[in-house]
């Protein structure tokens, strides 16, 4: 198929960016979206132009690196997938596709379609862990039974891949879904109880410091999340935050 791509090009963080148009031919339905961009880049290199820079690594939907806003939607039109799992059969011959980076104040553009998501790392560093030593001298793994439902719910929250689609989908660029997923993972496990109050307070404080917006419960994050992380996590984090604030 033949397509017209409109792609955001930006030399570096401080440069001014703009949309550029690239026609592309010979796209096959079996190609992934990123393989289609590989073809474009190969064409650009052969012509002596700079290829389009974008983040990607595992290309099987788990590392969370790929992060494209395609026709206004994070990871494109399909559901429960990352950009690398989007296939060109979702598009038609003659389509125009608009490709932008994930947009948020807390995700500054590095180059072209690549953004800096280190703000996510800093939220995790503020408290996204259990303070146990890694020496191995701990209690037996089966010493504390955990209700299966709680363990499974905790896992579902922990399945977050940190891609930032929730932020890109949100009109406020809020990171509540991302932050609440980690808070929930630990809040649901006995191992996370000891530090529960300080964890939620510190992570939320860092989230605000990074310049993410507030949550207004529109739910776009949940819809666009490639891993189906539930809004319930935000509700749980709000409860945790409130109870921690009262205790505080």
């Amino acid at each position, binding site marked *: 198929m033949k397509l017209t791509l409109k792609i955001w090009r930006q030399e570096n963080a401080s440069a001014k960016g703009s949309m550029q148009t690239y026609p592309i031919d010979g796209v096959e339905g079996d190609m992934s979206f990123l393989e289609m961009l590989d073809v474009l880049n190969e064409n650009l290199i052969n012509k002596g132009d700079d290829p389009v820079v974008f983040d990607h690594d*595992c*290309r099987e939907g788990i590392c969370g690196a790929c992060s494209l806003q395609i026709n206004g939607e994070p990871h494109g039109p399909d559901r429960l997938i990352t950009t690398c799992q989007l296939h060109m059969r979702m598009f038609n011959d003659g389509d125009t596709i608009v490709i932008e980076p994930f947009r948020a104040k807390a995700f500054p553009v590095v180059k072209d379609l690549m953004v800096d998501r280190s703000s996510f790392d800093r939220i995790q560093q503020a408290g996204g862990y259990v303070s*146990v030593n890694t020496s191995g001298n701990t209690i037996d793994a089966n010493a504390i*039974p955990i209700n*299966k439902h709680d363990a499974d719910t905790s896992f579902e929250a922990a399945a977050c891949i940190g891609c930032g689609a929730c932020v890109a989908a949100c009109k406020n660029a809020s990171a509540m879904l991302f932050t609440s997923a980690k808070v929930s993972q630990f809040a649901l496990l006995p191992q996370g109880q000891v530090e529960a109050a300080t964890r939620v307070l510190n992570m939320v404080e860092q989230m605000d410091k990074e310049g993410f917006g507030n949550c207004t419960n529109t739910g776009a994050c949940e819809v666009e999340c490639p891993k189906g992380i539930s809004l319930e996590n935000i509700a749980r984090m709000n409860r945790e935050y409130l109870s921690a604030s009262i205790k505080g």
Partner: protein
Amino acid sequence: MSILDSKIPEGPLADKWTNHKNKIDLVNPANKRNIDVIVVGTGLAGGSAAATLAELGYNVKTFCYQDSPRRAHSIAAQGGINAAKNYQGDGDSNYRLFYDTVKGGDYRSREANVYRLAEVSGNIIDQCVAQGVPFAREYGGLLDNRSFGGVLVSRTFYAKGQTGQQLLLGAYSAMNRQINRGKIKPYNRHEMLDIVKVDGKARGIIARDLVTGAIERHSAHAVVLATGGYGNVFFLSTNAMGSNVTAAWRAHRRGAYFANPCYTQIHPTCIPVSGDHQSKLTLMSESLRNDGRIWVPKKLEDAQAIREGKKKPTELSEEERDYYLERRYPAFGNLVPRDVASRAAKERCDAGFGVNKTGEAVYLDFAAAIQRYGKETALTEHISNPSEEEIKKLGAAVIENKYGNLFQMYQKIVDENPYETPMMIYPAVHYTMGGLWVDYNLQTTIEGCYAAGEANFSDHGANRLGASALMQGLADGYFVLPYTIGDYLSNDIRTGEISTETPEFDQAEKEVTERIQKLMGGAGNHSVDYYHKKLGKIMWNKCGMSRNAQGLSEAIDEIAALRKDFWENVKIPGTINSMNPELEKAGRVADFLELGELFAKDALDRNESCGGHFREESVEQSGEQKGEALRDDENFKYVSAWEYKGEPKDAQLHKEELIFKNIELKTRSYK
């Protein structure tokens, strides 16, 4: 006598690690504050090592090419992690895990290392649970286990199909705790381009900031390489796009021996290549072979008709199908080990029976399982005279419950419904057992340079068992390195900070810069990927699942010629002093072009079939095993450790003889 000293401790197998730990020199906490350690790679091995070393008090710097440590490719491991907990009471023990791993590795691993791995495996699970890793649990609240290939017990712990992700996020969280304390300084989007030696010891690295292009010097008292495997030398593999051999290869060029480079695991159940645009391959879990039957058409004309789209697989009757694994290996059938299943698929496709348009795919069919489960469910639910339709529906529900996420993934990629038509699969490069040679302490042949996880040659011999890679990565990082590296660093308490303003750093930086300039100076018109794909084709066709002396000799020459062409003609756009992914790729492919040649040379030397490595000259000539892989313990019971001598083909072989005192060497038979 070999110059390789594996430093295996004395004493009975089960006491070696404890005895060794008791004799290790310790560094007192005040002195640890004055000692720096560099960890390159932040996957399971690197992440866990960095967190633990920082927790002990060392100053740690981590390096990864990704934008965050959380994205290391350990994250993609699906199935699980083995541990000899014996929670199921099914007879598991440290010895049994040790035995299974050595046997599964076709008797090409080091007994003492493997036993230690089994010994610490239980602690890994304790540790991860304490960190809040949400493993799968039973209704009683205790941890659940599943079974994996090549073993008779249930010892695999898991978190759905995302065990690697959960374990890596656990290690990442432990890192974050230390970053928050200021004990780890993370350098993300940085790539190590050389190791710096001072007085023969590893004392730092040269790295490139991938955002600015700046070349940086970083010093330390010891350097840990936890940079993963080199499966991407084949271009197409299940590895991440950025997975590379550069850190290990740079260390090799500086004196670290490279062990068993030809040991590659080729996984039988991956989604086949769909065309030339393909950038990577996706694994479908080994667990599918529990219920799927593998087949190709019996007649060549049927295979051709299917390839041309004139026939559908469901139109072929049972008599027209060749369930070749069940035919060749009646005892194990579809559950033969990975290496056997992979070779058999290639054999059928090479003979013209492949079923997709490229002719490189076989069927994995769930129709029989759907029937079987459907009838079973109808019985248990007391449905009398169920219709065909009902049986199918009931059966499909059982299959969905077991493998739903895999079926969905397959459908997204291939656009076919595997409940209705058989899946197509083909083998793909998945894991490399070879890597930097290390002694019992995980130290390479460069003093002060350690290698952990898939980056070392370690514990898997010639073939790795499922769910053992995660175990090894975390064992090395959490429980082995923190002890053994302390022994080495105890000599450095008076050394003080290592300066980066020395002739050694000057020289290393100069060489890195010159190499980058040379790469940018290519005069031709071909992209990096053009060369990478060509290399991949040579590797797959001549150094892949089935190898012979002639093909391997040709590969050595072809790779050398391709390398020459690459250095003269590769075209890299952009500049040195800015973000330039093509330049990053070029550096990695340049190293793959050297490793590939050594890989072929190693495979040529090893004139035996063992593990995933099938040598056409070494097959059983008679009897029941006729035509099967023939291991040669008399002549090849050694680790090949290669010393760099300029061109890869001039590398010098050092042999570490493997001594088996606790296990009897047997032929693997699956007939």
